[in-house]
């Protein structure tokens, strides 16, 4: 799988430099919503990489190489996970730095991180099987729909006014957040299993 | 060992190899017990099919012109005088047939042909 990740790495750093810069910038800027975008958008990295693969018909060749179907599927998810972890880490560090400089609101970004991560993981869990089965073009549409929905949810949950109207605590409790995050992790495991099965029967 | 292959001549390639090697063994150019290139090496060097060189070698082995030592390869067999005599007789027969058909074309009778032969012998020797 290292080979596949190396290939994806080359594609990302070559072609998606602008995208990466945006992600990093959003992660650094002290704004919960932007950090949210950043993390969620890293979940879209796999999709973009898959588009380049399809252009060269790489899948046809890759399947004849000693990669297992599981490797081929897992590496795509891994690209998203690694990206999300990177964005999360940058956001986290940025928030800590801000807090060290006395920015009080920085601590609000922390729960936002968990929400975004859940959102990103949800995106992957639902979007990836679609794309692996139906190809990038069709899966892309669904992916975007979900991405927008999750982004909206991320903004809403960070917005105090709407939170007050709904009589929700401004920041959801940590235990609940952790539960939600754990749930999306589980969802991902299921998603990977489904994707692997779908990919096995897919003919290229 | 020298082998020249022609792809456009009517003669099958395995036959070209077979006859050329045989001729060199009979003429003594290939000495007894000298090693021959492996079937595969010969094929690759001549850029022809391995199956074909194998066929040529098998025929040569069958007729006693070469022998195989397991693990070591193929070697030229001792000149088999019996086989060579056989070969030469066959060649003479073929030439005689040719003479006969030519004689027919010219309208020469059998005694006239024998006359020619005797005259030739006396002149040459």
């Amino acid at each position, binding site marked *: 799988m290292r080979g596949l990740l190396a290939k994806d790495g080359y594609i990302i750093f070559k072609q998606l430099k602008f995208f990466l810069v945006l992600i990093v910038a959003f992660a650094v800027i002290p704004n919960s919503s932007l950090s949210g975008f950043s993390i969620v958008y890293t979940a879209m990295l796999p999709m973009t990489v898959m588009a380049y693969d399809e252009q060269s018909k790489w899948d046809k060749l890759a399947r004849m190489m*000693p990669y297992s179907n599981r490797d081929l599927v897992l590496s795509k998810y891994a690209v998203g996970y690694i990206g999300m972890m990177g964005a999360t880490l940058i956001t986290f560090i940025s928030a800590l730095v801000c807090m060290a400089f006395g920015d009080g609101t920085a601590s609000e970004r922390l729960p936002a991180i968990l929400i975004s991560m859940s959102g990103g993981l949800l995106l992957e869990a639902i979007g990836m099987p679609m794309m692996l089965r139906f190809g990038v073009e069709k899966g892309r549409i669904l992916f975007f729909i979900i991405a927008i929905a999750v982004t909206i949810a991320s903004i809403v949950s960070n917005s105090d006014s709407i939170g007050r109207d709904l009589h929700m605590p401004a920041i959801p409790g940590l235990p609940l957040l952790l539960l939600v995050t754990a749930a999306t992790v589980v969802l991902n495991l299921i998603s990977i299993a489904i994707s692997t099965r779908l990919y096995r029967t897919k003919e290229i | 060992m020298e082998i020249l292959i022609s792809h456009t001549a009517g003669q099958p390639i395995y036959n070209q190899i077979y006859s050329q090697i045989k001729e060199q063994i009979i003429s003594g150019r290939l000495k007894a017990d000298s090693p021959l290139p492996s079937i595969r090496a010969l094929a690759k060097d001549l850029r022809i099919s391995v199956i074909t060189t194998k066929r040529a070698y098998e025929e040569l082995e069958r007729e006693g012109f070469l022998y195989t030592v397991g693990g070591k390869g193929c070697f030229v067999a001792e000149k088999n005088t019996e086989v060579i005599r056989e070969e030469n007789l066959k060649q003479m027969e073929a030439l005689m047939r040719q003479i006969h058909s030519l004689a027919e074309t010219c309208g020469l009778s059998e005694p006239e042909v024998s006359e020619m032969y005797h005259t030739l012998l006396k002149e040459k020797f």
Partner: protein
Amino acid sequence: MKNALEIKDLSRSYKDFALQNLSLNLPAGCILGLVGENGAGKSTTIKLIMNTIHRDSGSITVMGTDNTSPQFQDVKQDIGVVLDEANFPEVLTARQVNKVMKYTFTRWDEAVYFDYIKRFDLPEKKAFKEFSRGMKMKLAIAVALSHHPKLLLLDEATGGLDPIMRDEILDIFNEFTRQEDHSILMSSHIVSDLEKSCDYIAFLHKGRLLFCEEKDRLLEKYGILSCSREELEKLPAGTVYGRTRSSSYGGVEALADRTKIPAGMKVSHAGIEDIIVFLAKKEG
């Protein structure tokens, strides 16, 4: 290992095409040329061999291993593949491909790879999308040869290359099979390339295997007969194969078995391309 490839009764059907009961063997150390028109089933066969598409029936054994078994994953380390259109993502460079392949094949040989890159005159740091079709092919061939494979599967690997380059590549394939456990299955519609380098020729036509024969025996057996129509009709059955080609002046050309042609008739050399064209005409 007797056979590098054993295919028995392989069948696979699609909506408007079907590969039917294909059986052929590739003995170890040999080069088999798969020839056929576009759509005959050559690429389908290669995909079935690598199990990237699933067969309806039949069996495929690659170097002794069933290609649907889990052990086949390891066998893939010994197989080098060159496909017609599929290749590495276009943004990669030859250097980056090296890194990727290093982590893919256990016997990846960097020195051999860069040796081929140099030999084929390929730039190391340019992205593929700037390569010509021929250059992309050469890179794919370099990759296929650089992990010490035992079997090469080549799908139209010489298309898009100029004659000089093709000759060099065929030379490389010739050298590859100097070792007796190295085999090649190559599909092409450049019949002259196959005629130059193959031990066996298999002719696939509309999903059916019309023949799989030793190349040299094919060249020995067939000749092109030129005669008049009356003479042709007088020939015994089984002398002539396939359709005949007539001129408007009463003459015909036909593919014939040399051993069955009566003496005195005009026979000329039949190349593999001739054989295929005449036979295809009949079936078609």
